């Protein structure tokens, strides 16, 4: 018995059901494009991810992603050449529902009904909400220097390394906020308290 298929993760399902060719008198049988194949085309050719990244997004191995993508391209080509309709249907996928955070009450909430746009916080009804995405979290390393001793913060100045900054309170050498293990760094410039 073969190993069961790994379930593919989808972030953005299509909000329409398919495509139809223009100007054909008789209708051919449509090509069924699975959701996972749609997602592969979206990731590779629309979002322009590399196969390795795209495979991680869909939570499958890189070779599996390549097979899904190849099958998707062949189906699209077949539909184009033979004038067939394309229907999005089926596939072994699960939907990764989107998470939002509210800046007002500090909660997180998801959004099960994908076809409706979300405007208000699910808890307090505030409009001050933000969509959560993995990538943006990593990018937001603030440009702030922090003192490893007293935790005092200071805005980072361009072209001045944080190590050259000294804490106004305890005269410690500062370090970049968010740098790994910044709390462990101690140096001889610190005054003994």
């Amino acid at each position: 018995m073969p190993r069961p298929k790994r379930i593919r993760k989808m972030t953005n399902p299509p909000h329409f059901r398919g495509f139809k060719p223009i100007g054909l008198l008789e209708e051919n049988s449509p090509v069924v494009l699975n959701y996972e194949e749609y997602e592969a085309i979206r990731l590779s050719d629309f979002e322009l991810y590399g196969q390795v990244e795209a495979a991680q997004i869909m939570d499958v191995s890189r070779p599996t992603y390549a097979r899904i993508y190849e099958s998707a391209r062949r189906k699209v080509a077949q539909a184009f050449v033979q004038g067939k309709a394309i229907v999005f249907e089926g596939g072994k996928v699960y939907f990764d529902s989107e998470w939002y955070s509210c800046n007002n009450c500090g909660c997180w909430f998801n959004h099960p009904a994908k076809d409706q746009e979300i405007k208000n916080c699910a808890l307090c009804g505030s409009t001050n909400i933000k969509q959560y995405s993995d990538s943006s979290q990593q990018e937001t390393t603030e440009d702030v220097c922090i003192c490893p001793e007293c935790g005092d913060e200071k805005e980072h100045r361009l072209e001045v390394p944080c190590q050259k900054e000294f804490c106004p309170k305890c005269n410690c050498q500062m370090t970049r906020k968010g740098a790994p293990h910044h709390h462990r760094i101690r140096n001889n410039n610190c005054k003994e308290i």
Partner: protein
Amino acid sequence: MKVAITSTGNSHDATLDSRFGRCSFFVVFDTETHATEFIPNPNQENIEGAGPASVQLVASRGVKKVVSGEFGAKVKSIFDSLQIQLVVLNDPEKKISEIIELLNHKN
């Protein structure tokens, strides 16, 4: 619309329980009638499957939104398939009455 809130006790002064499957009480709050109902969680002491069993419990009450501190890995997909919205509130000090007040703000 009905909202379920996980609670540590059966009064409005109790705080939000940070665990969904093994919380002490579920508070089912109706945003239209403003009625609250406290349901003791029978799955609190379960060795396994407390999350999915609790999902069945709240889903059977017709809840459309669940407020808790944390949701387990098994629970998320079941809630998604039932079209129930999850609200994660990272504040174990919040009282049930405060959460209900927040929910009322919307209307």
